[in-house]
């Protein structure tokens, strides 16, 4: 089963709780789990999530998670 590190940015850490800003959180998910599935598992609303990076590459939420990956979730941004 894929074991990966999830890093959260913006105000997302508060939405998840028990988040360690230095290490992120380690999650183990069933094979075939997508980013969208994980967002749900973490208790986040999909609308709270903007950019998604898997191992530094911008991906869509239907991407399947890989073992050993680093997933970064950002909230939508605006401003300037």
């Amino acid at each position, binding site marked *: 089963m894929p074991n990966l590190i999830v890093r959260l*940015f*913006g*105000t997302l*850490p*508060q939405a998840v709780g028990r988040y360690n*800003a230095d290490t992120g959180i380690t999650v183990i998910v069933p094979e075939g789990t997508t980013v969208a599935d994980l967002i749900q598992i973490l208790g986040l609303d999909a609308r*709270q999530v*903007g*950019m*998604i*990076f898997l191992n*530094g590459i*911008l991906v869509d939420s239907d991407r399947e998670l890989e073992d050993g990956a680093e997933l*970064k979730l*950002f*909230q*939508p*941004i*605006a*401003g*300037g």
Partner: protein
Amino acid sequence: MKLIRVNMRNQSVAVEKFPEKYDGLGGRGLTAMIVSDDVPADCDALGDKNRLVFAPGYLSGTPLINTSRLSIGAKSPLTGGIKESNVGGTIAASLARLGIAAIVVEDNAPGEDRYVLRIGPDGAATLESTSALAGCRTYALVEQLDQQYGAKNSIACIGPAGEAKLSSASIQVTDTDGRPCRAAGRGGLGAVMGAKGLKALVVAKGEGQPVQLADPSAFKAAAKAFAKAVKADETSGKLFPELGTANLVEPINAVGAFPTRNATQGQFAHADKISGETLARVIKARGGQTTHKGCAQCIINCSNVYVDEMGSYVTSSLEYETIWSMGAMLENADLDAIARLDFLCDDIGVDTINTGVAIAVAMDAGYAPFGDVGAAIRMVEEIAEGTELGKILGNGPAAVGRHFNHKRVPVVKGQSISAYDPRAIQGMAVTYATSPMGADHTAGWVVDRNLSVFGGKLDRFSSEGQVDASREAQLEMAGVDSLGLCDFARSGMAGAEGLDNLCRMIAAKSGNSFVETDWRALCVRVLKTELAFNRRAGLTEKDDRLPEMFLKEKLPPCNQVVNITEAELDTTFDFDA
């Protein structure tokens, strides 16, 4: 409302009825018209023909939230074109409450004379000699002015860089705590103020009365709905209060658009050490302030107060653009050093963006190694000391490039780009290249429209649709800056009712009908006036170009160059397209 006209040569002050031809204008719209009408476009920006105009926005001083933005206008010594430099703090609200729509500063004081323009609680203006404060840095200056006039004032002032007439000189404005930490940084307007011999503008704070409204109840209903939308928005309601503008460090770095090492790379390996998340953590652990109110009537509170390990004040507010210019551009991951550099720039009175980039160009040219924080601090101190190198640095990145004969200089019209590399977000290439203000992210921020995850529909590496997006964004900002509305409160304009509410408030203030087409007409009028001034000043389409580095040097990790053609850029201001 009235207009105050100050002549620095003979120290006369005249109060005039607000000219009818400017009815309905405030902020950037008003400074643009006055500069366009009164300043010969081909004049020396530091000479006696230039004028410096301070104008609160059209909605400043009303009950609407986030409207204490001041527009300062003049011909810019940095860009050679018209300039509106926009700043928060409390001064716009203070001026508007005293019934002052604009202060026009004319001519230059003789010799090395320095003056303070004092606007008292009754709105009366007097010009007072202050030559004893010549050379004073802004924090010490504000302390002295507080002693002289009392602490209940809003102040706009210059430091040594402005007095030395350096092209990156800022005008520093006091925040809600009375610190001169809000900067009208862009375009070197501090040098214009210095050339005129005006050291400070001291305005009685919280006096007078709220701006008169033709239909107060209609105004308040629309203002309430607008404020509710700003509060409900995820970014202005939660993200900016939590992390400030620095929230952008991680996402912009992640997409490879965070110019690093004088914009030779799009990602900074140590971005996590200077991110908004880290900044908030450090500030909270040390007892500083996040969620700080920097400007009058603000409900967003994006400001912060950065403190050292002992909990002592270092600077406010540490912003995304400064974290970039003094951080990634110099390969400096030391947040304390960035905060120190931010303070120094505010104290000396220089734009943190132009100054950080000037240092980055010098480092790129081999003057000092990247990452050498001590060298960066010494270089900024040299600006205040007025050494030969200090003067070059204080005149900005283009001056540094010429001095070292170094070609990689990320500026347009002499003004440095900001913290979004146009090779990784092509829409910003259009705004940087074509804005009459020179390279300026606030003139037309299209980052969200370039990233699909933010609802943007544009391919950020393609030129398709970018010109249209930049045109619309530039138009909207010309209007927003005319109202005195904070950029971050534009979230109130989103949705079906947003712009309608804004139009309702304009109508409820003036008593005249104002609808969406009037809004569009206002935005076009402001931008057209600025563009026409620049043409008269001698700027041509050739000045609406990015430097070669963006066209020829691929930016890792995306390995793109700007691919928007000159022909495409030249259609940016086809307003009827």
